[in-house]
Each structure stands twice: as C-alpha cells, then as structure tokens.
C-alpha cells in the first residue's frame, strides 16, 4: 500500500474525544430539558463547560483538518456518496461551532450568568434582547435534532463501510493502528 490510509493520530484523538463529548451533550441536553428533578441543576452546570470545551476543540480541529487533510475516499465510491460524505462532515463541523455559540448567545441575550466553574463566568456575547434569546433557544433545539440526525447518518455510513464494504474508510478513523492494507485486503 502506498499513501496515507489513516487519519493522523492527533486527528483520531480529536475525533473520538469529541464524539464522546458531543454524544454526551445531546443526551444531557435532552435529559435536562425534560427534567424538573435535582438532576436539572446538575445537568445544566455540566452542559455549559462541556459546550465551551467543544467550541475550543472544534476550533483546534478545524485548523488540524486544514493542515492534515483526511485520506482520500476509495475510488470505487460513487460521486454522490463522496459528496454526501464531504457535506455531512462540514455540517457536523458547522454544528459543532454553532451549538456552543448559540447556547452562549442565548444565555447572553437573556442576561443569564454564564457560569463555567465556581466563580468563573463568561462575558455575554450578544446584547440583552428577550426576543432574540427566545429565538436562539428554539434554534438550539432544532439544530440539536439536526446534529443528532447527522450523527446517526455518520454512524450508519461508518458501519456500512466497516461491516459491509470493508474498504478502509472505517479503519481510517479507528483509534488503533490499522493493519497493513488499511482493511482493503479483506474486500
């Protein structure tokens, strides 16, 4: 085999760390808005710092993606699948930026304190505007559903490549070193 068959170690580390964080956030988000128990305050207090962590990580990840382009998709993949793969990746990137910024923005527009840890607060990033706060709050929910749907499509495609096609696309992102041949030998 010649050429790059796996994402760089750093790219894979970022991918799996953020996969855990994003999936955790989706469930924390759904859990907290459907609860009035003691868990509500706890979940909200976890949701904010993880959101900011994701915002920082996705900024690092975008730079890393531009510096370390992913390995090429297999030549046998139809064009529409390649385009769908690219588009879904950029949708995921856009949402990983948008969700924390909208969360931060909606709390800013409502003039909530934006507490990260203890007495560490973030400054507001938008003017005090109740209508804007309400609209961003709704957008936060709609985009969370879109993020979850895109994640499911991403997971489905990854499993299709990993279990059915076995064309090296799945193994390009596994956390461990792929066997020589990048999984292509099993085709």
């Amino acid at each position: 085999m010649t050429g790059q068959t796996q994402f760089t170690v750093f790219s894979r580390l970022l991918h799996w760390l953020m996969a855990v964080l994003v999936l955790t956030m989706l469930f924390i988000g759904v859990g907290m808005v459907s609860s009035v128990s003691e868990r509500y305050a706890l979940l909200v207090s976890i949701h904010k710092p993880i959101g900011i962590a994701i915002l920082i990580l996705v900024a690092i990840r975008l730079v890393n993606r531009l510096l370390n382009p992913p390995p090429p998709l297999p030549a046998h993949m139809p064009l529409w699948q390649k385009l769908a793969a690219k588009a879904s990746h950029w949708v995921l990137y856009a949402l990983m930026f948008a969700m924390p910024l909208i969360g931060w923005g909606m709390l800013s527009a409502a003039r909530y304190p934006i507490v990260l840890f203890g007495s560490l607060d973030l400054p507001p990033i938008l003017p005090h505007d109740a209508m804007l706060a309400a609209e961003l709050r709704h957008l936060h929910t709609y985009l969370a559903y879109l993020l979850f749907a895109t994640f499911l499509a991403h997971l489905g495609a990854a499993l299709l490549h990993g279990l059915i096609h076995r064309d090296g696309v799945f193994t390009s992102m596994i956390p461990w070193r792929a066997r020589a041949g990048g999984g292509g030998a099993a085709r």
Partner: protein
Amino acid sequence: MPLQWRLVVTIDKHSASTNDATLAWPADREKVDVGTLTVERLVGEGERVCRDVNFDPTALPAGIALSDDPLLSARSAVYAVSYERRAGEVKEPSAVTTPAMGIGAGQ
C-alpha cells in the same frame, strides 16, 4: 431613604432537613446577620429591566451555594421554560407606569 432588608442565616447544627421545604425548623436555632439587601431606586417594567430577565434561584452570588432542596432545581427548570415562552411573545408597552425617579434618588 433606600429600603433595606436584613439577610439572616439560620445555623443548623442538628441535621434538620434541608431538602424538605415543608418542614419548619425549630425556633431555637442560632441566627446570624450576614448582609443587607438595599433597594436604592425603582425601575419600570420596560425593556431590559424586569420584563426581559428571568428569576433563577440557582443563579447565586459567590459565597452562597445550592442546598439539596429539590425545589430549587425544579423552579430553575420551570422558570427557564416560562421565560423562554414569554420572551418569545410580541410585547405591548406596559400599562404600569413608575416614577422616573425612584426611592432615594434626587433627595
């Protein structure tokens, strides 16, 4: 004159319940004055004042932490939903007018 209220903390050393607001504590608990709330002026119900903010009992100043009272979390959750719903409504100017100058101001 500004209006003032004393902030009094009741000290419990006998493990009275802090997670059940329906239980009254015995009257003999030690009480400590820890601060004063001062209202220096009145403001109207207009934009960006009381109408456009949410009261959240879990938003606390440094030095005060949440107890294990489950009502605090429940109130925070439902007030957030209430705020979201009323914040998204088109507002008419308030029928309530308040003096431009508040208590204590201009004296």
